[in-house]
């Protein structure tokens, strides 16, 4: 049975907590608006991780996965390509840091390459699962935009077929920190606040508890 619980409490608390400004017109967000966007970040993190799981899933068609890759790239600053930062400085594409318990090393990949690599991981099956919890820091204003960090936990399991059995060949749990930008962008309808992910860093890599 599908059970949908949509909480009213926070909604109404936000509504009656105070007056809301009109954020799309200004470079300053009220605290209530900041909370709204923080919650939106949480939704995006959830979606991001679910998409990673699907992209890595060997049981799904590659054309479907490519669609998910394209959608995931739009979550990143510059749509995953080189971009100009909020200060006007040219920047390379956002990156994903990856780590391995085997090599004890970390390396960074442009997010697009990372996502494409997920299609071709050398395992018969890959499970990427997320922890239920994540943390989004308070937004800090930096000039005309806001920055936050989000912390997520992912478990990665790569399986290989051995003697007809699916056997875990590699597992780890990583704590990842994502830079979050809340910035103004302009489109034909005017300026608007948008949330974009920046670089993703590995904070810790652990062997999962047995």
């Amino acid at each position, binding site marked *: 049975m599908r059970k949908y619980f949509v909480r*009213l409490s926070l909604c109404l608390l936000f509504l009656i907590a105070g007056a*809301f400004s009109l954020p799309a017109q200004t470079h300053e967000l009220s605290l209530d608006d900041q909370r709204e966007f923080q919650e939106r970040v949480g939704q995006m993190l959830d*979606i991001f991780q679910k998409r990673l799981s699907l992209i890595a899933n060997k049981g*799904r068609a590659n054309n*479907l996965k490519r669609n998910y890759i394209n959608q995931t790239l739009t979550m990143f600053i510059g749509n995953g390509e080189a971009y100009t930062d909020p200060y006007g400085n040219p920047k390379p594409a956002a990156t994903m840091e990856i780590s391995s318990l085997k090599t004890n090393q970390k390396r960074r990949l442009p997010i697009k390459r990372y996502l494409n690599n997920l299609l071709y991981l050398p395992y018969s099956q890959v499970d990427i699962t997320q922890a239920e919890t994540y943390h989004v820091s308070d937004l800090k204003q930096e000039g005309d935009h806001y920055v936050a960090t989000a912390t997520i936990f992912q478990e990665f399991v790569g399986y290989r077929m051995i003697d007809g059995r699916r056997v875990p060949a590699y597992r780890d749990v990583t704590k990842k920190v994502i830079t979050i930008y809340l910035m103004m962008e302009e489109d034909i309808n005017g300026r608007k606040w948008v949330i974009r992910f920046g670089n993703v860093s590995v904070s810790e890599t652990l062997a999962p508890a047995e």
Partner: protein
Amino acid sequence: MKYVKWIVALLLLQGATWLNAQTLHGIILADTEDPKIGRFCEKDVQLMHLFMGGVAQTIGYDYSDYILAGGDCTSGNAMEAIRSLQVGPQDIVFFYYTGHGARSMQDTSPFPQMKLKDTMYPLYRIADQIEGRSPRLSIAITDACNSFIAGLPSKGISGGNTYLSKGSSDFYKSLFGQTKGKMRITSSKIGQDSKATEDGGLFTIAFLSTLIEKEQDGSAISWENILSATKSKIEDVHVPYWELKIDRANSGLSSEEAQPSVSASGSVNLQSSSLDKVLARVSSDDEDEGYRVRLSSEVLKKYFASPRSIVEVIGRNGSTLLARESASQFMGRISTSFKLQSFVVLDVQKNAQGRIERLRVHEIYRK
């Protein structure tokens, strides 16, 4: 199975309405052109619309709305809206007015008259009309003054704002889905003004904060309890008045109420009540991912004037612009999202061909 899904999709795209769909009919009157309180009323409209839609989504009902604001806030329009409702036996009709209110020295009803564009109009007449349509649950709320004015119309009387939003499933099913009868509620008793702040009408704020508390503490849920607790919060300022004739009811809500059944009998013109269902289908985690992507493509072609049509995602406060996307971006996103349960369609602007050029929605995620 695959074909069944596509048949369902086809029916959806033919302009679906849901067989036996239960509907929450929202009628909102707002004096948004009043120079003193119009801006509050304007916000009330957004919030009330969002709330009613959210309640409907939460209890598995379709949402059909009439928003009569500004120059449309007339008694004639209100009565025409009520007359035109297709009310089923399990339906809810939820009337809400925000604006000035008053009463004449001769009024005998405990409820105020609403200051509409064409005339002062008593709430009881609206409520009588709605109740005469025999919905399962009739709700009529005014957030307006109820003070005596010698000679109508009156001026300078504060109106109020109402904030309503989506609620937890059980709580709102209990209040809206499992009750029958009628409710008439007004923010102040005979002879009293209603107060409002920049944040909204005092009654409304108290009413909503009571809902929050009751939802959180899990105490006995009944409209009488909620209104009594609301009254205790503000009775030092003004005293709300209500008349309830409410019983428990079997609303016919099923455990799978969010699953629509489908009919091809709807008109080609897009109705918000069907659009939200179509979008929810595209965003549903229960559907195959490939199907969702294909369906999103079909919806984009069928419903939108162009892939560049504008979609705005509005926050729970009814005003924060959380995202503005092209239709193709929006459909691409929702077709690959997770926990995106449903949508409240706040506004649809269509071209001459009936296709969407601009859409404003509120997104409801599952926790």
